[in-house]
């Protein structure tokens, strides 16, 4: 028993040293992603990160000469993770908002997201009914849409209830379950969901201005900021960028 215990301790220590050593050996930049956010970033069938942002960053890393690893990170904690240096940047369909701008630096925008409400495909709800009725809304926690809805609708006296979810797919699941009536998502996500056969429909825009999507970097990290910004601009000038957008269903 004593020997067994000692063996386990040694193995555990070895695991820690190896996992720690891998970090120290070569400086690989870490891209924090929301792994539950297709088509921007998700985990593919083989367990590897995939998505528009993942492929774009891989191209940029190759072009600008750095190594990159995509680290799934809880979305609601992604900016604290960046500031605590758990990750080095965020390329995962992040919307530029004034609040986030105070915390991080954003690269040039690479996509405009349009935010819409979705409901069950058999639902006859209109946007007006959704906003002014006594319904239940769903939204992903820690997103620009969650903030906008709270500031511009709920704080201005609208009566609907807002239910927050860990990921957009979970909000969709609850629409199908009938637990919420509508959910606010980007058209990109909504189209992806419908493509995968979810019985939902877009009922329309609810008033949030279109979001700019960009990569986020720590404020003091100007070197990395320049690399990402230049790389992204280069990428967007290539035909590969159009291919990528087409491949992942973005317009």
């Amino acid at each position: 028993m004593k020997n067994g215990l000692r063996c386990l301790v040694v193995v555990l220590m070895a695991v820690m040293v190896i996992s720690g050593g891998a970090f120290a050996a070569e400086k690989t930049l870490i891209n924090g992603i929301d792994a539950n956010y297709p088509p921007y970033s998700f985990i593919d069938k083989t367990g590897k990160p995939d998505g528009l942002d993942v492929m774009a960053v891989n191209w940029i890393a190759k072009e600008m000469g750095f190594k990159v690893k995509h680290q799934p990170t809880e979305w609601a904690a992604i900016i604290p993770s960046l500031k605590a240096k758990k990750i080095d940047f965020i390329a995962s369909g992040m919307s530029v908002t004034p609040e986030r701008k105070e915390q991080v630096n954003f690269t040039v925008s690479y996509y405009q997201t349009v935010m819409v409400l979705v409901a069950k495909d058999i639902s006859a709800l209109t946007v007006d009914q959704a906003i002014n009725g006594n319904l239940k809304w769903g939204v992903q926690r820690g997103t620009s849409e969650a903030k906008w809805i709270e500031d511009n609708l709920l704080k201005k006296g609208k009566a609907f209830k807002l239910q927050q979810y860990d990921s957009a797919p979970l909000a969709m699941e609850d629409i199908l379950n009938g637990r919420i009536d509508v959910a606010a998502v980007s058209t990109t996500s909504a189209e992806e969901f419908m493509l995968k056969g979810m019985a939902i429909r877009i009922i329309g825009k609810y008033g949030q201005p279109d979001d700019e999507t960009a990569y986020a970097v720590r404020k003091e990290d100007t070197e990395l900021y320049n690399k990402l910004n230049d790389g992204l601009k280069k990428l967007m000038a290539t035909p590969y960028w159009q291919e990528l957008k087409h491949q992942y269903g973005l317009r």
Partner: protein
Amino acid sequence: MSQGMTAIQEGFWYLLEGAWVNLIVVVGALIFGFLLGLPLALGQVYGGKILRRVFAVYVWFFRGIPLLVFLFLFYFGLVAWLDINLSAFTVAVIVLGLISAAYQSQTLRGALLSIPEGQMKAARALGMSDFQAIFRVILPQSIRLSIPGWSNEYAILLKDSAVTYALGVSELMSRTNHVASRTYQHLYLYITAGILFMILTYAGTRLMGMLQKRLTVPGYTR
């Protein structure tokens, strides 16, 4: 149905790797918790007044705050503040270990106290020092008595380890979400995760049961 099965098939190895991560986290936390819990227990039973008080505060502190709060506190607060960069995995092992130490110390304390006081006196009468009496007579018996408690602790830690998904530890729960977000087969994937957790719990508690039988001293009754 068939879409659900396909999703499970596709994601199975990815999920299984996640379950393995849970297991490593739990075993790590159990060992760390034991190494810390043992002195805590001994101190609480045999220590002086101040030591007892200090250790009691430790136990009270780590039993009184939810796991998720500790995880965030360590990962984003303490570790970042001290400017040491520990991985989410390491923080998960440390935090679960610190909490487990509090619980394990109580299991061990109970076991230590259940050994009749006469044994201590007898050992002293045979010329053993306090230290020898504890480590040669009391502790070997107490550790055997603690096994059912550890079995329980293992099952609790295993389930707690699912919470570490909030830090992005690549364990079963976060991996289940990854596969579900791609395939939209939430029901089937959560069922799979549940079954994998049940298998792990069953296997672990069975192992502890076997260990207990193996270590029983024949003819020994309390």
